[in-house]
């Protein structure tokens, strides 16, 4: 008999308990209900819904977008899970989308692997999944596959999230950390240090109250606009852990060039500056989750800057410095005071000073 297969749209399961328990990780009905209720419902993806063991795509569909596959993964362990400006879910989607976008790729699909402690509330999980869904929609990506594990209380600091993403790089786009050369211009798309400051503040150890929010944002739209206006851009990187200073050192080392920045030109909010002054922290090393470092050839610098500034996520974009033929691997800064100092790689974690 030749009968066309009927595609049954599933009824999604539901969770009726308030918190995650070990049985939600057991592989049985409780786990399916959790996945359905929290993730499938939020992510609303036709690829995800059947809950196959893998997401599948036609290669020809992918090839429409470019000629190389970009593939990245990141784990997110931020504490606290929810902070001013976002939560671990939004952070994860942004982080993975941005990791693809800075390579010149169009981000397409994400996976979402969750490790959650028993005792975490289902509402919190729904909140995080909701954030992921909204951010994915904003970025134009789909979350198409995932995994869920439940562990004993205390085993994973409430929730760990790993997202992997694939994207496709357009033909002709060749960005690389080793491509910076003498005369290139270094710019950023906006104020620095917000995310790092917001997280430190949210942890509460220092009992400081601020209005600082994480700058967490998906940057693929911004990057598309940038590359359209300035196709000769050499390199992009998001300035996450270790901040601007770390990225500059990575560029200087890989390209074997010297970079000098102007402290006066680094855009930083007044309250982030104040926060750093109080604790004796250096804003150049604070994490950003919505900022990229751009290395552009001098003849395209103006166009690149204009493109950034036209975009809602680049309003405060600024040129911060130049690549020059000095000691290879060295990053220096002309301070607001007029003197010069080295901006080195961070050693260990920045700790607040008393002195």
């Amino acid at each position: 008999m030749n009968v066309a297969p009927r595609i049954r749209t599933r009824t999604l399961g539901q969770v009726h308990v308030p918190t995650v328990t070990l049985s939600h990780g057991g592989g049985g009905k409780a786990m399916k209900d959790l996945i359905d209720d929290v993730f499938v419902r939020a992510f609303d993806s036709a690829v995800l819904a059947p809950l196959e063991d893998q997401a599948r795509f036609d290669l020809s569909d992918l090839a429409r977008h470019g000629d190389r596959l970009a593939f990245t993964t990141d784990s997110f362990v931020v504490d606290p899970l929810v902070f001013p400006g976002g939560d671990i879910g939004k952070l994860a989607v942004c982080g993975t989308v941005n990791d693809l976008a800075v390579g010149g790729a169009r981000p397409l699909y994400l996976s979402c692997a969750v490790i959650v402690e028993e005792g975490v509330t289902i509402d919190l999980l729904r909140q995080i999944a909701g954030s992921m869904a909204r951010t994915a929609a904003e970025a134009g990506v789909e979350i198409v596959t995932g995994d869920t594990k439940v562990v004993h209380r205390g085993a994973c600091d409430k929730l760990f999230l790993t997202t992997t993403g694939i994207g496709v790089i357009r033909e002709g786009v060749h960005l690389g950390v080793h491509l910076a050369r003498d005369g290139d211009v270094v710019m950023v798309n906006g104020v620095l240090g917000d995310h790092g400051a917001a997280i430190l503040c949210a942890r509460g150890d220092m009992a400081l109250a601020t209005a600082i929010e994480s700058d967490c944002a998906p940057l693929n739209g911004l990057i598309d606009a940038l590359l359209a206006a300035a196709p000769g851009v050499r390199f992009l990187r998001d300035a996450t852990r270790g901040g601007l200073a770390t990225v500059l050192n990575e560029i200087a080392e890989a390209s074997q060039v010297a970079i000098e920045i102007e402290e006066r030109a680094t855009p930083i909010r007044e309250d982030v500056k104040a926060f750093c002054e109080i604790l004796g922290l250096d804003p150049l090393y604070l994490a950003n989750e919505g900022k990229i470092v751009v290395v552009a050839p001098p003849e395209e610098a103006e166009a690149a800057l204009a493109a950034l500034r036209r975009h809602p996520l680049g309003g405060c974009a600024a040129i911060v410095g130049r690549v020059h033929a000095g000691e290879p691997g060295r990053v220096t800064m002309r301070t607001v005071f007029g003197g010069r100092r080295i901006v080195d790689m961070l050693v260990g974690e920045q700790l607040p000073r008393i002195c």
Partner: protein
Amino acid sequence: MCLGIPGRIERIDDVARKLATVDVGGVKRQVNISCVVSDEHPVSSCVGDWVLIHVGFAMSRLDEAEAAETLRILTELGEAQAELEAMRLSAATTMGAAP
């Protein structure tokens, strides 16, 4: 021993314990103001004061006049330097361009 930062006392939180909230460039924190109060300057009169904060304690009231004086000395120095430079230049012009 050192890391002190200027901040403005915004409001008094606890008169008996001498606790106040300061604003440092938009960041707020509760500090102990025991060291900047006296009979002549009681807790309630501290609102609006600029103080030097170190590890959660206000340790000194910033003297606006002294701050201005410190900077004035430098401005004066700068003016004196500019005058000297102007004199040098005009002398050179008067003498002509002879080597």
